[in-house]
């Protein structure tokens, strides 16, 4: 294949990526957009087998190994993507992002090993950038995965002198970067990679669980930029365009997400240092709460005129989407007005809850976004909160300095009655006590969301 044909097809792939992002920004065209992106990526991968780089011969060297490695990647990636529970999807995206960053760092390292002293200054700078940011993205994403999978604590991890350790690591990264750029050599580059991996871990550790999605999005943008930088090293326009697109759109998306959660990006990343670590697990809680039976909940619901259901991650974990729809149908049949109040970050990520409820065929019209549902709580008889906590926690408005302070919440406290279906008194993902649980108009029904809902449904049928 001649260089010109290769470049033209590469341009087609690059345009596909622009159209893919454009499509993904609107609900109507989102799926098509993703398929266009997949087409572009497939095209880009196919043509490289016919023209790898200036002066390369066909077939490619190491072809069996290349094909074998691709097969392994497909055999790992596809089943993971198909089998993952929708509830666990955010951490899978984090992992995919991390391995992408790792791949970019490795590509830059290999190219550097080959070029050696021949590398131009600009190429070395791009290599250093790719290695640093790619490694940060890789190790940082693994930590976000561990947090979301709850394999480690979801609270900010802040240790004594932590900020000095982080600052020290960052300075070492910069110094070693300078060393690589000035003197070159393999050893400094590998040291740089190792330091960057450490920095990635330290960078994500202080981030609280509820803010993790913002960090994933930011690391995603980072990975995009590393791909662009390695495209520069490899003289590939396609990689530059694709990487830059992801880097730029990812940055915007990160800001949009932070805005939807009412967080400043800076506050998210460095909040753990500036705010005092809030000790919410201060002893056993002794205040009384009003816990009740499924029958009582059913009666409350039966005599309501308007019910707003607030679904949270607990509902998704219990796989109770179908049962909650059954309950909503039953209430609607009794002439009760039912709506779902969807917080932008209900679940683990912006839009996550919409995906989960769509999976259970909940009618689209009943899903009401936060801004629209909040003014209606005053006319609502019952707010039924299922497995949600942080998104209705008034501390976000009343307690400056708490990890979710400033996040917009669903103002369920304005409803005449508040019912929580919860597994236990355990605080939510952000690890903050919820005052609303102790409010006199709040009723609690403990248990697995699905089991509780099933009981409420049968009690409601008996009323």
């Amino acid at each position: 294949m001649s260089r010109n044909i290769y470049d033209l097809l590469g341009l087609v792939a690059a345009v596909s990526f622009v159209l893919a992002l454009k499509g993904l920004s609107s609900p109507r065209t989102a799926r098509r957009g993703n398929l266009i992106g997949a087409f572009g990526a497939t095209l880009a991968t196919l043509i490289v087998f016919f023209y790898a780089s200036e002066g390369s011969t066909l077939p490619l060297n190491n072809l069996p190994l290349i094909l074998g490695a691709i097969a392994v990647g497909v055999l790992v990636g596809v089943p993971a993507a198909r089998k993952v529970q929708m509830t666990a999807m955010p951490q899978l995206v984090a992992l995919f992002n991390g391995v992408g960053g790792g791949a970019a760092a490795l590509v830059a390292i290999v190219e550097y090993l080959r070029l050696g002293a021949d590398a131009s200054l600009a190429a070395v700078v791009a290599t250093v950038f790719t290695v640093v940011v790619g490694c940060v993205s890789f190790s940082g994403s693994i930590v976000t995965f561990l947090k979301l999978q709850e394999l480690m604590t979801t609270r900010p991890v802040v240790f004594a002198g932590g900020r000095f350790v982080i600052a020290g690591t960052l300075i070492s990264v910069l110094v070693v970067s300078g060393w690589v750029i000035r003197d070159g050599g393999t050893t400094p580059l590998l040291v740089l990679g190792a330091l960057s991996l450490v920095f990635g871990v330290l960078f994500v550790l202080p981030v609280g669980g509820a803010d993790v999605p913002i960090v994933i999005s930011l690391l995603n943008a980072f990975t995009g930029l590393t791909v662009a930088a390695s495209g520069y090293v490899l003289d590939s326009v396609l990689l530059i365009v694709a990487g830059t697109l992801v880097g730029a759109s990812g940055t915007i998306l990160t800001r949009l997400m932070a805005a939807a959660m009412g967080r400043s990006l800076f506050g998210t990343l460095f909040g753990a240092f500036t705010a005092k670590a809030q000790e919410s697990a201060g002893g056993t809680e002794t205040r009384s709460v009003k816990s009740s039976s499924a029958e009582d909940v059913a009666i409350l619901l039966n005599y309501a005129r308007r019910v707003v259901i607030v679904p949270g991650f607990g509902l998704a974990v219990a796989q109770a989407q179908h049962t909650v729809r059954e309950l909503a149908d039953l209430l609607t049949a009794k002439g009760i007005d039912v709506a779902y109040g969807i917080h932008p970050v209900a679940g683990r990520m912006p839009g996550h809850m919409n995906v989960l409820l769509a999976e259970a065929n909940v009618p689209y019209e009943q899903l009401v976004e936060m801004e629209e549902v909040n003014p209606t709580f005053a006319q609502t008889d019952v707010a039924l909160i299922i497995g949600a906590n942080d998104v209705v926690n008034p501390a976000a408005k009343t307690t400056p300095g708490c990890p979710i302070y400033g996040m917009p919440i669903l103002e369920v406290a304005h409803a005449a009655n508040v019912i929580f279906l919860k597994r236990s008194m355990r605080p939510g993902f952000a690890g903050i006590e919820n005052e609303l649980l102790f409010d006199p108009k709040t009723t609690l029904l403990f248990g697995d969301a699905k089991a509780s809902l099933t009981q409420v449904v049968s009690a409601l049928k008996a009323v």
Partner: protein
Amino acid sequence: MSAEMALFSIFVLSIFIGFEVVSKVSTTLHTPLMSGANAIHGVILVGAIMVADHSETTLELTLSVIAIVLATINMVGGFVVTDRMLEMFKGKKK
């Protein structure tokens, strides 16, 4: 324009395109959009194949083969998981 300047211009123009395309997105689509963008940077696979092609030492080859595996997981897995998310959105529109 020198070749390097051309690459740099492409970079800068791409930044603006990237900013423009996603300037208005409803929160519902944040997760799929992030996931789709994530899949797109999987094209680093192309770079990984390029370096595997001219790898000479065992070290270079080993690293580039690992890079290919990782990049493939990123790209293929990314598009598949995004499609699964969006499939559900389509269902509820009916």
